[in-house]
């Protein structure tokens, strides 16, 4: 929990994901393209966690920003010869931010199912636009031939996904730093306040609605960057980055990992995508059965997601050890 009384210093266990990622780079060189994909989704999930977990905005339309970012980068690289990866990222971020602020300002006065449907409608409309504007987006065939110049003029995206992995890892690391910083700032504390007790935030004079629009825009920007990363890694954009499915998948990943705990956004995509990848290789026609069971089990037995469960165990463990200590005395 972030706030005025929490220590913003990075705790040792927070380095764990990065150690694992770097270890994976050296130990599992064959899985790097899956790894890069996972990293992109973690960033995407982080952006969702910011609004869902910290500001309490429920959405099925986050893919609108992801997809817009992906297409912005893709169109620049394929049609306009803007091949610099950082320029592409920047443009994607801007485009997503613009969409975020304009849609957020309209829909954030609503709540629950209504908000869910509005976000869904928006991403569906964006999807239809992408499909219709096939001269720009390639329509359902996808946008191929996206040119991405070597990063810093040095590192070309290679077949093994090494560059992609490191590139995504660095992007994710920066995104994580940023979000972490944000969450520990007064702004983050304020967000927690809104989620915990919106009425109370009104009563201390916070312009809640505008703050929500702001955080929604920030989150959209980040999702846009994640989308652009996916484009750059694949040098291809397909319509599947938009619409209900990616939004739903993302939501599932995040809830699976644990909402509103920062690292839920790390655990969820890792578990989901790796489970999917593994199951799909074993049972290509029925793998989603396993995912379904996983979801139901999580809902019934681990309400706070996987990290919630870990927390419970941890607490039970420390209770037992403290009571053991107490009885020893």
């Amino acid at each position: 929990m972030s706030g005025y009384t929490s220590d913003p210093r990075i705790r040792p266990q927070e380095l764990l994901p990065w150690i694992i990622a770097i270890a994976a780079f050296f130990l599992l060189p064959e899985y790097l393209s899956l790894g890069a994909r996972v990293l992109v989704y973690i960033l995407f999930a982080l952006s969702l966690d910011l609004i869902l977990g910290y500001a309490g905005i429920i959405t099925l339309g986050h893919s609108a920003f992801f997809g817009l970012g992906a297409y912005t980068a893709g169109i620049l690289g394929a049609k306009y010869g803007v091949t610099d990866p950082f320029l592409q990222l920047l443009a994607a971020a801007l485009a997503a931010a613009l969409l975020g602020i304009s849609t957020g300002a309209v829909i954030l006065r609503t709540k629950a199912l209504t908000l869910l449907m509005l976000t869904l409608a928006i991403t569906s409309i964006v999807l239809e636009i992408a499909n219709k504007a096939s001269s720009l987006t390639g329509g359902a065939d996808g946008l191929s031939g996206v040119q991405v110049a070597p990063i810093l003029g040095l590192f070309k995206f290679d077949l093994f996904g090494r560059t992609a992995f490191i590139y995504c890892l660095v992007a994710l690391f920066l995104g994580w730093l940023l979000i972490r910083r944000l969450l520990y700032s007064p702004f983050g504390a304020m967000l927690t306040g809104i989620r915990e007790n919106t009425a109370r935030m009104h009563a201390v004079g916070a312009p809640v609605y505008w703050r929500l629009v702001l955080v929604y825009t920030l989150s959209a920007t980040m999702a846009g960057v994640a989308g652009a990363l996916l484009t750059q890694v694949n040098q291809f954009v397909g319509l599947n980055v938009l619409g209900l499915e990616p939004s739903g998948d993302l939501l599932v990943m995040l809830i699976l990992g644990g909402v509103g705990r920062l690292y839920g956004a790390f655990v969820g995509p890792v578990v989901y995508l790796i489970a999917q990848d593994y199951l799909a290789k074993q049972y290509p026609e029925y793998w989603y059965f396993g995912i379904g069971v996983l979801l139901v089990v999580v809902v019934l037995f681990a309400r706070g997601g996987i990290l919630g469960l870990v927390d419970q165990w941890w607490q039970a463990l420390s209770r037992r050890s403290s009571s053991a200590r107490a009885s020893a005395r």
Partner: protein
Amino acid sequence: MILYVISVGLSVTMGLMGFINLAHGVFAMAGGFILSTAMARFGLPFPLAVLVAFVVVSAGSIVLERLLYSRLYAAGELAQVLFSIGLILISMALARLVYGNLAAPVFLPDYLRGQVHILGRDFPTYRVFLIMFSALLIAALWFGVERTRWGAMVRAAVDNRAMAQSVGINTRQLFMATFALGSGLAGLGGALGADILPVQWSYPFEHLVYFLIVVAVGGLGSLRGPFVAALLIGVADTACKYWIPEFGAFLIYVATMAILLWRPMGLFGVRA
């Protein structure tokens, strides 16, 4: 039009019970498969098979309700969403395992095929039948909900659950029955609609958005809301596809957005 019958069922469960049941399409799919099996394997006539679909799906839903759903009434909406998505995935895999890849074949009896001549134009018989049937169903539901003691009890339970208990209503049992009815309606819709919306294992996911739109636009906690919404969206969608087919796919979403921004609680929504 068949979406309406299915969605009315959803508005019963979701609206009355406040459970975000994304897995509603599962029951519709089950209805379609049961119909197909009843007709193909057991040679039941169409009307009987439809009835069987309704009954079996209702009964099955009670089991699910007791085992799973009832544990989640008090859970947050996120948990409900996640749970019902899980259920969708499981049911899709099972349906595929049992019924294979193809859509369930459904053949209408001859008397429902062809066209009827009304006011100098031809209309497909089955569609006319469906519209009439839905209208009858709605009328029956409306009567049931607005004019019977059972309906009054359901509405009372929706209005104020604690108070409903305080006048001696067993809300748990009532909700179970309501859930069964809602699911049964979905099964009925799936069965009746199988000719138009082919029933295949991917069904619950494919049509999810439509169900949600109908319920959201209609408004939670209302029975006529989803009906009106389904009609409105259905007619508008059809008209739009007829007049300006280039924008066919946009319309439904644009309309949804417009209505929800105009009336955030839906057309007839009562619950905040």
